[in-house]
């Protein structure tokens, strides 16, 4: 199914890179590197140049930390979305938020996609997406409170839970008026999950893909990669790319990533192995 993300539509064989742009002081990977607005804009320019179709702007660290009020979140996202929109009229702009008030403000400034990283915690967010014709990403967080770390979480079947919860939320989005072709589902690796759970979700991602809803994966440098390979945040790219390749093979459509160039290469390589993308060049033994 063609995926419509606000002002852009993408054919179903396109694999999309969503570049992470944090307007936070304390996110686990970049640790405030793009908290300053100019630095964040510079990052947007770079990731667009590197081939990202989507930027995902976030104003609140996912993990626990100092409280970020809706006002503070608005302050770092809404105006910035406007600046990005002004410079990149065709770029798909996503905003990572769970708050309807923030969603409304960023949609007014031209955001195309609301990436609800906390799985419908604020039901008003779907209404906002519907009102503005924005796309919506439904994540599986098993009812977790935003920013609370997982603690002895358990599932009879984590994949079943992820499918049931995200599909329910997706249908709720459609019922609220979000176009069906603008709804994504995300198993949300690490969110309310152990490393075992995130590995199983990756291994069985084809089951989520089989629901027919386009799947977004957010794998980049996460703890499940770090724990699996015993690597600190700076040493997780190889593991991230391995998980990216498996997810692409299973049919995920959108890849939320810190490293755009490497992610794009993996996606191109998998697409070519699958046979849906010709090699960039092929002259070997053909002269």
């Amino acid at each position, binding site marked *: 199914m063609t995926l419509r993300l606000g002002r852009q539509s993408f054919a179903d064989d396109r694999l999309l890179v969503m570049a992470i742009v944090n307007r936070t002081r304390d996110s686990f990977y970049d640790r405030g590197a793009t908290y300053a607005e100019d630095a964040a804009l510079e990052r947007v320019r770079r990731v667009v140049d590197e081939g990202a179709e989507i930027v995902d702007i976030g104003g609140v660290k996912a993990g626990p930390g100092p409280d970020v009020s809706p006002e503070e979140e608005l302050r770092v996202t809404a105006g910035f979305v406007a600046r990005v929109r002004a410079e990149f009229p065709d770029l798909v702009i996503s905003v990572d938020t769970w708050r309807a008030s923030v969603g409304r403000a960023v949609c007014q400034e031209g955001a195309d996609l609301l990436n609800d990283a906390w799985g419908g915690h604020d039901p008003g967010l779907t209404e906002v997406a519907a009102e503005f014709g924005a796309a919506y990403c439904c994540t599986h967080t098993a009812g977790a409170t935003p920013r609370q770390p997982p603690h002895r979480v*358990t599932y*009879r079947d984590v994949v079943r839970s992820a499918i049931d919860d995200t599909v329910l939320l997706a249908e709720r989005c459609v019922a609220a008026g979000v176009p069906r072709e603008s709804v994504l589902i995300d198993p949300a690796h690490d969110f309310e999950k152990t490393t*075992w759970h995130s590995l199983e979700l990756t291994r069985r991602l084809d089951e989520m893909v089989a629901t027919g809803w386009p799947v977004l994966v957010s794998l980049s440098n996460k703890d499940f990669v770090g724990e699996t390979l015993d690597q600190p945040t700076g040493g997780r790219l190889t593991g991230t790319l391995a998980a990216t390749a498996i997810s692409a093979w299973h049919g995920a459509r959108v890849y939320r990533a810190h490293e755009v160039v490497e992610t794009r290469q993996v996606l191109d390589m998998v697409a070519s192995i699958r046979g849906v993308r010709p090699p960039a060049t092929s002259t070997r033994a053909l002269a």
Partner: protein
Amino acid sequence: MRAAVVPLTPLLVRSESGLADPVAELREEAVDAVRQLAEGVLRITALCPVDIVGAPADYWWPSGRPGTGPLSEQVARHLVELAGVDVELEVLLVSEIGPAPVADALLVLGDGTACRSQAAPGFIDERAFPVDDLIADALEGGDGDALARLDQDLAAELLVTGRHTFAMLGAAMLASRRTVDAELRYRDDPFGMTYFVAIWS
């Protein structure tokens, strides 16, 4: 009355932490405590927290290890199995403070606070430190009164899974009207959550 206090972290089951074994010493102490608890008795009564944060009533092992039921009960059964003792295990599921249990050998499942570091399950809360100190002092000193009077509301905020079972241990000891030889054999917080192993006899 004899009692052993052990945590209920899933990591006590060796398969759950992958290739590494970050709680080897804790497991050894817990298994030793269970072994000592079982000496000369036919039955151990386990006080198993359930239906509170950190003590799910139905726990499926993330690694795929077979088993269902309350996490605390599964951990208790596993420790008894590791201890290799031939005793009957009676399980009391505890979701709130119940009557003081009457038993020859009590296996008390429970963890301390879970709010001792930025990576802790409950993030960091300065109030956690004196609460863990109070529990540790009580376990080390055989102070049933202190455990029975544990501030339940504060302990709930700090995600103390042992708040009910520790209080019941304290009440059982007070009811027995005897003093105990108490030993705190392990106390640490490797993941920002305090684990205790203690034995009272």
